């Protein structure tokens, strides 16, 4: 495997609530290689956005309980917001889920970018040429810098935020549901831009958080599937889609419609049941209650273990 950009080891991030701690991220370990584009998929509430946010900025309710994150060999102080500031934007950056409202509505975009850069000790004039080049790359007119965010369409805002977030060539980019609010043609443009940015070394590695497996299938080098705050399976994209080992991954992929297949005679299979509450998660495998293959051993928690090179699974049946 190529050198490692990101190394996450046994990361635990919980949400503090009045009813107790929600264990949204409970012992997650994985690595992302140099130049790797990783898709992070799972149903809503599985902890994928929590994982993405943990790598850059914990919000007020989130608490770093345990585990470490290493970026380019340096440990990220993810629990210490002040010290994290030095890494943000320059080493690790995010395209947030809310890109549509991510820009200050009362500032011209160019001025906002300038103020943001200057506040990080980077001269705006020095970056302007690069900024214009990248705007052109994603198909935005340089004139958008003179506009207010409200004057841009959803797709334009998404691309603008993408350019801003990656302007300082971070090692790691977290793209959180970047295509969810877009129509298919914009989805394609944004997805291609993500690959393009990686190929041009604007960003070293990218984590794409999505609930849309069919999207990451097209662009990601490998895919991580999460379930109820834990990793279920990580494998190179082709392996994961065509030879998944975890029953959850299999059912997830089985639930996707296929092009060229008619579904009028056969219903698409869903996954019955719903994920467990993370306020007080059950012992053992968390997928047990919904799993058709569950057996006695599943009362014990399965480790996340490699079953083939680069292919790790957390399921007793897969070992």
């Amino acid at each position, binding site marked *: 495997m190529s050198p490692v950009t990101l190394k996450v080891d046994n990361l635990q991030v919980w949400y503090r609530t009045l009813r107790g701690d929600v264990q949204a991220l409970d012992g997650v370990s994985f690595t992302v290689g140099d130049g790797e584009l990783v898709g992070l998929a799972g149903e809503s509430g599985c902890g994928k956005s929590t994982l993405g946010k943990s790598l850059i900025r914990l919000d007020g309710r989130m608490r770093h309980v345990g585990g470490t994150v290493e970026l380019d060999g340096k440990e990220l102080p993810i629990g210490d917001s002040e010290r994290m500031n030095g890494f*943000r934007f320059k080493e690790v950056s995010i395209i947030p889920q809310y890109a549509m409202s991510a820009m200050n509505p*009362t500032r011209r975009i160019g001025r906002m970018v300038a103020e943001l850069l200057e506040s990080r000790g980077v001269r705006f004039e020095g970056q302007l040429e690069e900024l214009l080049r990248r705007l052109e790359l994603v198909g935005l007119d340089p004139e958008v810098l003179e506009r*207010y965010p*409200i004057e841009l369409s959803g797709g334009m805002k998404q691309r603008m935020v993408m350019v*801003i977030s990656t302007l300082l060539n971070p090692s790691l980019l977290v793209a959180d549901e970047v295509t969810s609010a877009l129509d298919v043609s914009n989805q394609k443009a944004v997805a291609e831009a993500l690959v393009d940015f990686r190929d041009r070394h604007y960003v070293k590695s990218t984590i794409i958080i999505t609930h849309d497996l069919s999207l990451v299938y097209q662009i990601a080098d490998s895919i991580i599937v999460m379930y109820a705050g834990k990793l279920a399976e990580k494998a190179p994209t082709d392996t994961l889609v065509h030879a998944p080992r975890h029953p959850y991954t299999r059912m997830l992929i089985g639930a996707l419609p296929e092009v060229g297949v008619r579904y009028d005679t056969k219903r698409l299979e869903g996954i019955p049941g719903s994920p467990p509450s993370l306020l007080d998660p059950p012992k053992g495998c968390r997928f047990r209650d919904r799993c058709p293959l569950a057996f006695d051993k599943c009362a014990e928690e399965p480790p996340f273990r490699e079953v083939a090179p680069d292919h790790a699974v957390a399921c007793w049946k897969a070992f």
Partner: protein
Amino acid sequence: MRQYFQRKLGIYVLTFFVAVTIDWMIPRFMPGDPVQTMLSRASLRPEAAQSMQAYLNSVFGLDMPLWRQYLNFWGGLLRGDLGISVWLFPQPVTGVILRAVPYTLALLVPATLLSWWAGNKFGALAARRKWLDNTVLPLGYVLTATPYMWLAILLAWLFGSVTGWFPLSGGYSFSLAPAWSLEFAGSLFWHWFLPFLSLFLVAFGGWAIGMRNMVIYELEADYAHYLESLGAPRRLVRRYAFRNALLPQLTGLALQLGVLVAGALVTEIVFSYPGLGYLVLQAVNNQDFFLLQGVFLFIVIGVLAANFLIDIVYVVIDPRTRTGMRGDTA
């Protein structure tokens, strides 16, 4: 943009028309007769009173049919003639009002602007300092819930009656004649301070609370989180949040102007301060239609003008209103 201001101006003209009409109606439908009041003050013989009544009715134009009086009122208004005061007969109303206006403006303008400015600053500060939020802000709730005149009475009692630090009534000391002297200016300031303070305090509480809530809301907005995710220093995020939080506060200022004017009027009455509020009280007591109309008219014009000004400022500082005007939102 021009279309926007034309429409706004149209609305203001319409409002002005309606306000003037109501202004003209109120004294006329009030019980009582100003001419009778004047006559009873003069205590004349019955036959003299009769001819006096006829004379006064024609002087004030009260012998004409109502619609004629209404048209005359507009005619006079456009010529800047608001009639003759009953209370200070035979002085023209315009002169009486112009003498009182500086006092009211001197109270109202600084109290409004300073309380808005200080309230915003303080509210923004309270939004990020827990101890301020927990100690001084509850005081803000008390202040903003206080009726203007009640606070005025309290201040007058405490600093006027009990301690005797400040004078209780008038615009300047009775022993002085208006002059361009330091002594007179000091006296003016001394008399001005308590009414100003009571207006300032009540308004200040409201602005501080509003700003605190708005800043907290803005600091939780998506753009603030995005900036923080990109490591922007707190200073920048707060500057943006403060500026954006000011917008609703400005709208609030436009909405509050009427209330502030009303507050100034009652405060003036409490302190017998020789501004418009004091005139209103005298006009009502003396059945002085023309003075009452004139004062209300001045207030209406003032509030409308200030609102128009805020409309313009809003367009300058909030780009979203401008986009809406051009109608080319993408």
